[in-house]
């Protein structure tokens, strides 16, 4: 074990874990976060995604020691107690079925829209293609992304829902 410093959602943590421990298990088991989840452990499905330096990263194949820069998880997307417009669009569109994959869907969509606030349908499909859903909520997820684009173009919706937790 060795001391590792990790900044997650605005808070700095000092952890006593092996440096090669996948970031996912540190986030879930040491920091008790529920957003990133284990789906494949192979970087194939996206359930574990987090944002590091503006990029959507597979935390299941990222050693904790190599996570340089602040980690933002699903829990960290909300600002000042208000959901992110992407999350808000997800609720308005009622996007999930079981919802287990939606961490990856939302994180990937957030990174896409940060880089490209007005993606075409083709760009949405391309950017989202590595993020899987076995309930097949894809059509609804794509609709939610388009709704988020509209919501953000009009500024944050006034009736943004308060964070439940």
């Amino acid at each position, binding site marked *: 074990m060795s001391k590792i410093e990790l900044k997650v959602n605005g808070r700095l943590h000092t952890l006593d874990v092996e440096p090669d*421990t996948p970031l996912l298990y540190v986030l879930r*088991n040491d920091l008790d976060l*529920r957003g990133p989840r284990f789906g494949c*452990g192979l970087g194939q499905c996206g359930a574990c995604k987090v944002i590091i330096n503006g990029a959507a990263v597979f935390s299941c194949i990222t050693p904790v020691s190599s996570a340089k820069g602040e980690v933002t998880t699903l*829990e960290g997307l909300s600002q000042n107690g208000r959901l992110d417009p992407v999350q808000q669009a997800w609720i308005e569109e*009622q996007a999930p*079925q079981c*919802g287990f994959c939606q961490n990856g869907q939302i994180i990937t969509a957030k990174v896409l829209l940060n880089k490209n606030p007005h993606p075409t349908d083709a760009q949405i499909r391309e950017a989202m293609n590595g993020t899987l859903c076995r*309930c097949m909520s894809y059509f609804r997820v794509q609709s939610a992304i388009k709704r988020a684009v509209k919501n953000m173009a009009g500024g944050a919706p006034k009736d943004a829902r308060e*964070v439940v937790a």
Partner: protein
Amino acid sequence: MISSNRLPKQIEDILVMHRRGFLKSAGLLAVSFGVFGSGALERAEAQSSAAAGPHGPYRDPDYHQIDSWIVIHEDNTATFYVGTTDPGQGTGTCFRQLMSDELDIAFDKTTCIMGSTDITVDQVGSGGSSALERNSWPMRRVAAEARRVLLEMGSQRLGVPAAQLTVTDAVISVKDDPSRRVTYGELIAGKKFNVSLTGNNINRITGQAKTKSNPELKYAGQSLQRDDIPPKVDGSLKWAVDVKLPGMVHARNVKPPFACAKLTGIDESSVKGLPGFIKVVHKGNYVAVVCEREEQAIRAARQLKTTWTKPATSPFPSSEDLFSYMRAAAPVEMPPSAAESEPAPGSRPAVEGDAGLRNQGSARAASADSGIHVPPSRPPAARNPDMRAPVSGPVVVGDPDGAFSGAAKIIEAEYEIPFQGHTAFAGAHALADPSNGQMTVYTNDMKSYGMRRGIADFLGMPHDSVRVIWMMGPQGFGRSAAEDAAFEAAWIAREISRPVRMQWMREEETAWDTKGPAFLVKLRGALDGAGNLIAYDFHARSCDHNHVGYNEPDTVLIAQLMGSRRATPAAGSAAMPSDMYAIPNRKMVGEVVGLPMLWETPLRTGNLRDPNGPQPTFAAESFIDEAAAAAKADPLEFRLKMLKADAHDDSGFRRARSIAVLEAAAKAYGWESRPSPNPIRNERILTGRGIAYTFRGNTVVAEIAEVEIDRQTGHVWAKRLVCAHDCGFVVNPASLRHTIECGMLHGLSRAICEEVQFDTRNVTSRDWFSYQTLRHIDVPERIDIVLVNGDPNPERPDLPPYGAGEASLKPMLAAIGNAVYDATGIRIRRIPFRRERVLAALKTASV
């Protein structure tokens, strides 16, 4: 390290009350949560927090008591306790809508707790699309009875006859003097109803009150937002994977390196020095490692050295040789004793062709309804009420042999449907806590009640020493009702006397989960000189021997690996198509074949969403299209003609409803009449449209697919999909539409992507590259869904809801196949329509 075991104060307070036995009765968690409006979060917390709850025994809540179903709190809010689970279709919200309506309480003042065996009544859990069609009825009747009892109490309190009272939002008031009022909370909070219900099983449970008619329902019928979605979107939901207990450890399996392998040695020294290593546990051919931390267990499982011997012969043919094997194999003989036993209690009513016949009684009833003669069939296995029975004898209508001998034209075809996987988005997982000599299991098992009995029997514990707490998890679709991980976690937990979390890895889940069986379907059709389909011969053969049931202690994988052998493996089923075509002469046969080795293999079969429905429907509805093409008829008109040929209809208006969905789908699509294939086939991109229709249970669906096929790559893109869907009364239209939409895409995935591949000893498709699934890029440009849910019987005021969790998947495979034919002029009789298969077919046909 941050403590992960602390529960929110609100929940701890509940537990303190619970431990004191305060308000405790019949295993009832009768406490007020205080905060409402975030039902799912609260529900999950309440369920997960039961960890520190009472120490057993965990007696079944008595479903004859209103108190087991409904608790009303001081603040005039209500909690509903129901015995089902919601794997992600929003049924939990639908239950709240219906029960709020019957109780006359505001929807947002209610919450619903589901599927935890010690605090909710046993309604089996979820499955078979029965949530609204069957399970919601006892909930409604109990809520209606609670309202009646509260009105009586209000009458006494206010000194006014109940007939002169009215209820709005859980406030009873005098009709002529609304200032005289009393709330439900004032009448009952802190007390019990103590009212017994009648009915000899949970589905018949009732009080004296009548349920409301559809026009009286206020919340049911509205597209209320699902209560589970906000916590799923903001990260606050506590899933089954999130439960943590003091002292818990992590386990990972070490699977045999090939099917039917025998363990000959374990070299523990290969892992003993690893950090966090606790123990290797094993029995028979079952092996697992236990470590303090999750990543340590993963590493140890990979590093443990084990030796195994191969079986003398191959346990199965390779996926390439599967269909020739199935063609040559002898069908499974059914034991004569099985045909004589009675249907299992609780087996759900089945109709002809609904993924097999579930019991004799309903098969007979269905045959009377559909006009098709259905022979007695084997009833389901006693412990497995949803298990399909294979059809032993042929279903015969008219004189098929005679009709074939006089036909103007005979067409023949053979369809191949490979094994397809559940491949749940995350591997099987569970946490088992052996504290106090009891066993508490946290799981996403959709049938938590059966799991509780299964685990108790597997461990040899009394049933009331075990409780299963259902929490949300990755999808349902049948895999999470044959939940291996929970049995493994419970067994290891008892071995090492610590709470154990088990999680299957991706490769393990994709290779070793239960599979939807492969089908081989031979069809013959006879056309007369006018192009009418006058005879039809359907012969299905499924590779479904040893179809594992729901959480059975002797068929779950750990039991198999430990050497358990049931004397007679489940025979599985080969289902029949479910249509209302007036084909005057029919013969339909279903047979099951087995693989050379049935036990300890990754090709064990199980119930996969709409079990054994999509396979025969793909064959049957593709073949109807072949008949239409042979008659040079438009495929829609060909179907409608067969539906309109016979004026007779059954009590469920199945014929009229078939016509209605086909016409609605055609209208929504803008269907233009012409025979297939599409005469325009010159461009690089070939375009085609296909239609298919089927019943699933009482729900009827017609779907149209429009595809584009790239002739250079073979890639099939479903550009547009249309569904016309009739599932009776609609409780939540938005949730229904989303469920239909996702079901359609699941059908598309099975049509163009999914195929289990294996050599003669192992499943070789083991991750998301080798086992393909639908992706964002495959999604149609446009999806239209038409809810055709009018009641065809104007005399009946109360159209009931029918199941909708699976139906829209069922005809999609054939709709895609028919569209591929329309586009290319080539009938590809094997799914999935992957690009290499399509390209090869195009080349062979020089298209």
